[in-house]
């Protein structure tokens, strides 16, 4: 399989995985900008930022998925059929829409 195809498969898998992982709460350190400190616990009433850890974990796990998918795709010699790429494209868009919808609902319509 050519690089153009292995890259498309692995990066589509990574993109979809990252969007799905992003929806789950991730245990990680929070940054407290007023104290210039990272803490694992959440202190009520004090501004803190959990986005860094959340984003880093989602991107890291997405990169692992990409590496695994790339390894599997590289072993195959035949070029996948066109519908395979359409399916991958649909999964990229669908997971992004799902993640955007859930995140919007959490921010404006529901609870965290």
């Amino acid at each position, binding site marked *: 399989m050519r690089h153009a195809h292995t890259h498309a498969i692995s990066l589509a898998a990574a993109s979809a995985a990252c969007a799905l992982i992003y929806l789950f709460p991730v245990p990680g350190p929070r940054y407290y900008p007023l104290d210039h400190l990272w803490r694992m616990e959440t202190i009520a009433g004090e501004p803190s930022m959990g986005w860094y850890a959340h984003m880093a974990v989602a991107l890291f796990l997405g990169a692992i998925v990409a590496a695994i998918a790339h390894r599997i795709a590289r072993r195959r010699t035949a070029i996948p059929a066109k519908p395979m790429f359409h399916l991958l494209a*649909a999964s990229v868009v669908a997971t992004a829409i799902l993640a955007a919808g859930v995140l919007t609902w959490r921010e404006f319509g529901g609870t965290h």
Partner: protein
Amino acid sequence: MLFLEPWSKPLLFAHLIAAIAACSSAVHVGCRLYLLMRGRPGLLKSLQLHARILALSYALAFVLGALIYPVFRIRVRHEFLESAFPAGVGLFELKEHFAALALIPAIGVWMILRAWEPRIVEDRQSAPVVYAMLAVVLAALGYNAWSGWYLGSLRSI
């Protein structure tokens, strides 16, 4: 004094410039990809160049945004938005989330197109994935440009 607070305005300006570059290069990639897939193979080199600019400018805007986030978190969100305009908190949180979600697609567009070779037509079978990733990037950039401008017009760092 917050992390990088004395540098926050120049960093915000650089974030803006990188974001403008990302928006314009994403549109260029979309137009060139559309034309290339309709029989203009000579556009591949410029398509790859704009995809590289997109990946680099998006990554730069992402990193710069992450660096100035603590200043925004306190000076804008904590001191202004949470009391005066609570809906603005959600608007900004979504901006951060969407930026993270579109990072892999932004780099992915470049990595896939970089592997395309002019004479190998089979490479272009992966075009639907590029279109999909570009759509995600354009949607995130569109929302982030709008919300960034709107929130900045209320109060900036």
